[in-house]
């Protein structure tokens, strides 16, 4: 009964919002028609219905292939890392890079090296690697030791433990990582489609529709992309629910055990250097396998030369510097706004649960909408401005931060709250003295998890719309066939992103002490 009334109220809120949206759209009150009414969007979708199958099938095929390949690699890597500490150290750099890298920075490089839909498949695979890798490793490691004993007593070896226990125990974790990985694969594919490759693909369609002054079409493409991402998510949520009788936490543990290599600082530093070496080694290996012309393909050394001894090095350096000084502050502002919004909603939810619950569905939808499809819509509504970029950033950082903060607020010790209550404080007081201080470390964690998304959000906005910063530099360099810059942006953005997450990781450690 209670569930039903809650459901009814939720539906009511959605209907009211749709109605307001319809009025706003019909009267063209937002950005002179930038926000079409829901019925207009559906009408456009119907009109374009024959466009979708070819585009959608190419996108689904690329994303699906990338999803499978990336997950196979991630599961194997995770299993090895669970078994051998040394492998975990070696693979840490790779995982960290793939977690932090703004994928769009890799697109031009992939387009130099591969043709057709291959870049899309690779980018999708890169996008799914990290969540599945972490889930596999944790799932295989954290098994019930008593079950291990049972297998050992029956004469089992470590291989038997792997076969009979570790794989099965890790399964729910892996499936719940798939929930996150499936939309990520779509995101990777869409981003790579922006770069070209073939005439088909939802991303290509979106890019082609950008200049057509037809907001309804952009919205309907966004709607379709969201539907795809949401159904992929729900498919794995469903399988996961069937798999685990006991319910699992709604979020995958994406926190890379940051300094996870515990021990003296020199050991951790050594591990870091070695695992960075692995990434560089992989890079060199791929280049040598692909056998590309050195004019197009740049080794790490070539990039260093490009930025130092090359005759035009100082020009390149200043262009790069200018781009970063445009992009990074925006990403930071967006991240902070996203965190603030997340904190605000989390606080509202803990003070006025009903109010918060009404807002939540919309937060969820904004979460499933693939960023490449969402960005043009935000730009439509807010114009090609800094504001649009910040809004994009907020929309990607908000939800994960919200979940993290809410968990922290929910777990503040009841005893401490009682102390406040006994001294005459109400909900607000206990929030101020107990909840908020407790949420500070969670805010830092949220910042670490959201920082890469913030960077990606800003770069996509720049790439598609505002023509500033790093995103634009990528675009320009492709146009000018400035291969050195293409590789430099890709490499430095990985480095910068990893550095930023590491800094937040450090801050996280300090606040948790």
């Amino acid at each position, binding site marked *: 009964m209670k569930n039903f009334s809650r459901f009814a109220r939720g539906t009511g809120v959605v209907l009211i919002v749709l109605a307001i949206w319809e009025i706003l759209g019909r009267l063209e009150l937002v950005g002179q028609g930038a926000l079409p009414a829901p019925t207009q969007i559906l009408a456009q979708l119907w009109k374009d219905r024959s466009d979708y199958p070819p585009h959608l099938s190419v996108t689904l095929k690329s994303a699906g292939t990338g999803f499978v390949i990336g997950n196979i690699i991630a599961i194997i890597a995770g299993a090895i890392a669970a078994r051998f500490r040394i492998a975990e150290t070696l693979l840490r750099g790779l995982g960290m890079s793939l977690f932090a890298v703004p994928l769009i920075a890799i697109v031009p490089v992939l387009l130099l090296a591969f043709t057709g839909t291959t870049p899309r498949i690779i980018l999708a695979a890169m996008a799914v690697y990290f969540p599945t890798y972490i889930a596999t490793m944790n799932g295989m490691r954290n098994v*019930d030791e*008593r*079950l291990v*004993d*049972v*297998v*050992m*007593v*029956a*004469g*089992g*070896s470590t291989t*038997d433990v792997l076969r*009979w*226990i570790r794989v*099965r125990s890790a399964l729910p974790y892996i499936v719940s990582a798939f929930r996150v990985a499936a939309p990520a694969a779509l995101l990777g594919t869409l981003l790579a489609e922006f770069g070209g490759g073939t005439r088909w693909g939802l991303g290509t369609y979106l890019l082609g529709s950008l200049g057509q002054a037809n907001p309804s079409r952009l919205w309907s493409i966004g709607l379709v992309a969201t539907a795809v991402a949401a159904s992929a998510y729900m498919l794995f949520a469903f399988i996961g629910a069937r798999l685990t*009788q*006991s319910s699992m936490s709604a979020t995958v543990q994406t926190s890379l055990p940051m300094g996870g290599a515990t021990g003296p600082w020199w050991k951790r530093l050594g591990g870091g250097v070695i695992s960075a070496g692995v990434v560089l080694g992989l890079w060199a290996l791929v280049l040598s396998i692909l056998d590309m012309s050195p004019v197009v393909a740049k080794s790490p050394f070539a990039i260093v030369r490009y930025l130092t001894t090359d005759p035009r090095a100082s020009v390149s350096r200043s262009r790069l510097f200018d781009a970063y000084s445009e992009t990074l502050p925006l990403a930071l502002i967006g991240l902070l706004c996203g965190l603030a919004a997340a904190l605000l909603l989390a606080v509202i939810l803990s003070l006025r649960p009903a109010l918060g619950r009404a807002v939540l569905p919309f937060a969820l939808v904004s979460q499933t909408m693939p960023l490449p499809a969402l960005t043009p819509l935000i730009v439509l509504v807010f114009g090609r401005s800094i504001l649009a970029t910040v809004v994009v950033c907020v929309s990607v950082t908000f939800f994960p931060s919200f979940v993290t903060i809410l968990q922290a607020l929910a777990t503040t010790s009841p005893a401490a709250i009682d102390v406040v209550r006994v001294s005459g404080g109400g909900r607000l007081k206990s929030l101020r003295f107990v909840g908020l201080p407790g949420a500070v470390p969670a805010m830092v964690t949220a910042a670490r998890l959201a920082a890469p998304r913030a960077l990606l959000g800003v770069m996509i906005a720049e790439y598609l719309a505002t023509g500033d910063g790093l995103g634009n530099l990528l675009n320009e360099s492709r146009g000018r066939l400035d291969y050195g810059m293409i590789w430099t942006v890709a490499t430095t953005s990985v480095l910068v992103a990893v550095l930023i997450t590491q800094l937040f990781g450090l801050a996280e450690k300090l606040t948790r002490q």
Partner: protein
Amino acid sequence: MSTLQEVAGGALRVQNVERTFALKDDVVRALDKVSLEVPVGSFISLIGPSGCGKSTLLRLLAGLESPDAGSLLIGDKTPNEMRTAGRLGVAFQDPALMPWRSVWKNITLPLQVMGKPVKDFKTVIEELISLVGLQGFEHALPSQLSGGMRQRVAIARALVTEPEVLLLDEPFGALDEILRRTMNLELQRIWSARRPTTILVTHSIEEAIFLADKVAVMSARPGRIIEIVDVPFERPRVPEIMRSSEFHHLADRLSELLFAGGGH
């Protein structure tokens, strides 16, 4: 069969075994110079206060851990050799069932680990299931069973490989008194059929006497065996012996030893 021959050679010999655990700023002497002999095919009960090292000793015998000093032998084999040969049956204090496997599949697990074809054991498994009173629950998942039922699955699992050495760590601790008595009788029956060398850890003095040829009493901190008491009753034993004065006498003696050894 040749394996039965090997049962005959498998007396259990524990000599001066020591095991300490390092805690943060403390060391626990879980076992201090423990020695114990269990002849082939005999049944020993192990009683002692909580934390005196009973489970630790069983884990050492199961080859799951190694002693810091001293030796453990089963015949001329180390526990680890016995373990890898799949010749041990162990029921832990905690049922430790795989939550994703049904009752039937939990019982077949040791066979699968040993690489034996499960279908050859179909009748054995069916017998075991009826023995532990779980007919009709073959396809239930552990989460659908009561604590006592789960423990009975664990016992069936320990027996399915027809082990030569049986190590039971408070297998009936979670059962009610009536079921416990029934299970005691059943255990005696199963055990008499093949006579695996058995160590049973229990908190119940009655159970210890009723089932065993000898009862070893341990003391805590440091964990030591302070006395080994013979149980004179003929087999097969019937529940009525528990009312005999001889039984009561023995029980009194054991509880005195327990209290003297720091029990409560």
